[in-house]
């Protein structure tokens, strides 16, 4: 297959402008520039809209005010302890979910019968929103750390389990058959073929779960009126009235944390599993 069909002539005055593998340094710098520029433009748009005061500023403060508050919060040890509490519950819940789902997923994925039996059940359990379980959680485990962790673990289990299951089950049969021809036993096939092949999917499941887990933990804090965590902070400042800048700042910080976590995991994904993307069109 022609290797030149995907590349684009940068000097083409017409035709589709497609990405091409330019000199790496230049394209990295250009992308970084565009990211920063994009954030800047985004901020400008928000600032101009909020300055229009379509809504009174006590309800919707200027973007610059919110940013200022964000900086203040990030320098405030009390707020940082809230962040810590949230991340703590998030991490523990996520770890728990991983430790439970991955082994179970592998076990089920390797057995055709178990796979067929559990898939329908998982399909049914998946749509249950963990937020619906918050009231139950409150009754069972109170409003503190354990409730958060259990809820997070519950919510995070499904994407990881799901992805592990399918990752292990859908290993390329040709690879498995080749291994069998070479005399590998089931355990070795698992270790050398199935797991490496399923690993990217498992990691994707963890990525998805990480995002969901953050939403669940903050949601739980907010809705269960916990005493610590970003969610509880947001609840606190919103019920005390007139502190919209804090409310928005809290939400924005939560968003940034979530985006950073996602980017970090994305980077790790490309590091560990970059081989998956070789040969695909550069994105």
């Amino acid at each position: 297959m022609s290797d030149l069909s995907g590349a684009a002539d940068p000097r083409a005055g017409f035709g589709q402008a497609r990405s091409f593998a330019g000199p790496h340094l230049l394209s990295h710098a250009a992308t970084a520039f565009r990211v920063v520029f994009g954030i800047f433009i985004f901020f400008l748009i928000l600032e101009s809209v909020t300055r229009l005061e379509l809504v009174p500023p006590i309800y919707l403060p200027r973007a610059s005010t919110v940013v200022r508050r964000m900086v203040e919060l990030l320098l405030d040890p009390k707020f940082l302890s809230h962040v810590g509490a949230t991340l703590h519950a998030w991490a523990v819940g996520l770890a728990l979910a991983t430790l439970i789902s991955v082994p179970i997923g592998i076990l089920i994925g390797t057995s055709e019968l178990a796979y067929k039996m559990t898939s329908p059940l998982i399909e049914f359990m998946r749509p249950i929103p963990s937020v619906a379980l918050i009231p139950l959680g409150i009754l069972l485990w109170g409003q503190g750390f354990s409730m958060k962790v259990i809820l997070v673990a519950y919510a995070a289990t499904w994407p990881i389990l799901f992805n592990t299951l399918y990752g292990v089950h859908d290993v390329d049969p040709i690879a498995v058959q080749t291994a069998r021809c070479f005399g590998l036993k089931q355990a070795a096939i698992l270790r050398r073929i199935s797991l490496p092949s399923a690993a990217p999917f498992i990691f994707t499941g963890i990525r998805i779960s990480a995002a969901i887990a953050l939403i669940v933990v903050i949601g739980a804090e907010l809705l269960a009126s916990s005493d610590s965590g970003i969610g509880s902070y947001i609840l606190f400042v919103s019920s005390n009235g007139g502190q919209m800048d804090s409310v928005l700042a809290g939400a924005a910080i939560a968003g940034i944390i979530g985006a950073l976590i996602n980017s970090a995991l994305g980077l790790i994904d490309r590091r560990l599993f970059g081989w998956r993307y070789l040969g695909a069109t550069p994105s």
Partner: protein
Amino acid sequence: MLAVERFHHAYMPEQLVAANISFDVKAGEIVSIVGPSGCGKTTLLKALAGLIRPTGGTIRFQGKVVQGVPDRLAIVFQEYGRSLLPWTTVNGNIELPLRYQSIPSDERRRRVAESLQAVDLSGFGERYPWQLSGGMQQRVAIARALAYQPKLLLMDEPFASVDAQTRADLEDLVATLRDRFGITMVLVTHDIDESVYLSDRVIVLSRSPSIVLAQVDIELPRPRDQIKTKAMQQFVEKRSEIAQMIRRPVGREAHH
């Protein structure tokens, strides 16, 4: 019909793919372009089609300089599976380019039916491309080009992704189509046998940065036959001649 003057192309300032390519194609000819991998055959074809603007040189189609895709030019790609649209039927695929040519719908339908018949796929119109085998899909792509009624048909390694049997059938099909409709054809291929079998002339490119090593006239009698023609002395000679040119380690002549 087609005049290429000193075509030269570089994707990146240091990556000169084609150095100096010039040739002509007369109306009604079948011309093949062969050369080692990476010599810019596909780049050349895309430039001929107006999909890429060359960094140097001029390409004239019917006397006019090519800027953008010219009218009455059709192209068949190697990856038929990706060129045919999976969400439309075979009929829909063939008809699509015609919709924007101000052709009334009954004329369009007639052309679609005719071209399907020409490639021997009548009755498959309502199928989806992915329901057909690879060879059949490529025939649909050819039918699509046919229905477009081009003056020039460009083909980029069209038979590289099908098996040998199918390839032989498709080669014969293409030759028949030229005889029937008089379409000029430029065919890029890495298969030397195919180039000699099909063409009136073979243009041999050197290794990248490429130049035209030779233009070999093929004077084998027509209609050609897969077995008889390939057994002829002339066929074997031409074929070896071209093969040797391509295999020669010296790719770059002193022409800078």
